[in-house]
């Protein structure tokens, strides 16, 4: 068994225009930089992207927005991107905003083989419009469906040839549950290792969920809000 592909171009080569993609990351933290660059280069369009955020103007999913490759964004927060705002207001881009926990859990449901879940977030708000409401123990919940995505594209810290993945710090975020949710899951990793090098006790996503893996390069890892404590001179 060998899930290793040559690189980002090979990993995304069969993603067609019109596909539904999940893209891991929170803000610019833990995003699949190499695959996003490859998708921009490939020029596919009409994409539906499920991702917590939409990048910034010149990085992350923002790069795909610049090339007008995205038809619809499904996100919880999209505040950092002027081109996004322009396309939304001009009607070029569709956006569906859903609560962050609902987004995560709809991905999780998919990876756990559950068609839907009942969630509390958004009861009594416009998020509830058109959704089935069920009461359990006197509390109301919304029926939320598992996501159906063609490809999940995630970024991990380390991975092995069998697709086992380990994430670092808060770059984990949406990556594990998206990895578990893709019909085809592509993982780019900072360090590709041989089976046996990762301690089986500390693997976050078992390779059974992962179809393609490669070692990425030139990670920029841009920081959105650099907040520091000054040292005394």
């Amino acid at each position, binding site marked *: 068994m060998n899930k290793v592909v040559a690189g980002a171009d090979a990993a995304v080569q069969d993603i067609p225009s019109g596909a539904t993609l999940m893209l891991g990351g*929170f*803000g*610019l*933290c*833990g995003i699949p930089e190499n695959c996003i660059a490859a998708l921009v280069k490939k020029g596919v369009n009409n994409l539906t992207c499920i991702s*917590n955020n939409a990048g910034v103007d010149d990085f992350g999913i923002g790069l795909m927005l610049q090339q007008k490759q995205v038809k619809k964004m499904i*996100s*919880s*927060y*999209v*505040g950092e991107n002027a081109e996004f*705002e322009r396309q*939304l*207001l001009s009607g070029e881009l569709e956006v569906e*905003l859903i*609560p*962050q*926990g*609902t*987004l*995560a*859990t709809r*991905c*999780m449901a998919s990876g756990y083989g559950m068609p839907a879940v009942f*969630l*509390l*977030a*958004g*009861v*009594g*708000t*416009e*998020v509830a419009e058109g959704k089935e409401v069920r009461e359990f123990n006197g509390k109301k919940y919304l029926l939320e469906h598992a996501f159906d995505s063609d490809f999940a594209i995630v970024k991990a*810290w380390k991975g092995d040839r069998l697709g086992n993945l380990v*994430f*670092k*710090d*808060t*770059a*984990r*975020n*949406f*990556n*594990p*549950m998206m990895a578990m949710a893709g019909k085809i899951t592509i993982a780019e990793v900072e360090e590709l290792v041989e089976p046996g090098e990762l301690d089986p006790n500390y693997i*976050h996503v078992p390779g059974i969920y992962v179809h393609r893996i490669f070692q990425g390069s030139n990670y920029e*890892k*841009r*920081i*959105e*809000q*650099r*907040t*520091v*404590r*000054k*040292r005394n001179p």
Partner: protein
Amino acid sequence: MGLNKEQIAQRIARELRDGFYVNLGIGIPTLVANYIPQGVNVILQSENGLLGMGPFPWEGEEDPDLINAGKQTITTLPGSVFFDSAMSFGMIRAGKVDLTVLGAMEVADNGDIANWKIPGKMVKGMGGAMDLVAAAKNIIVAMQHTNPKGESKLLPKCTLPLTGVGCVKKVVSDLGVFDVTPEGFVCIEHAPGVTIEEIKAKTAGRLTIAADVKEMSF
């Protein structure tokens, strides 16, 4: 003169109890971390996947893989733990987080909150706010009592799209501290130099003044 932002945060910090797991929102709520009382140990949850959030890193030690929900670079503490977004909202939804502090554009006297959307303006999204307000056991709102036009933000009914219904337990504004009860807002403390008359004039929702209302001291 009412409280400044730091004082609002300082007052909210007095609500913290030893052993609390706490989620602090962006803005004034973040400042609460600077005023945790002596002898009170709390663990801060950041909904992007961290329990045990530490202070900002020393200059030069920022790590792009380690951020909080406001996308700011942060640090860990001994005992910190990372997890994915599904588990993060799982612990929120399951009621494990003891206290959530967040900002609001409007709060109604029945505990409804609006803080994510202004019709006609660019909508950025609710992020994790709807999940947090729907599930947290205790929600304190930090806010200015009035908008820049001087109109009350403590209302009989929210005019903006809701983030959550009947969930706010307490409001700390620049003018005072208000419990949200079945009888509406109950003013339990007023800011130094702020009169009860001013609070009454600037509160549009149902308001009663606690018999033992106190002036806050710092």
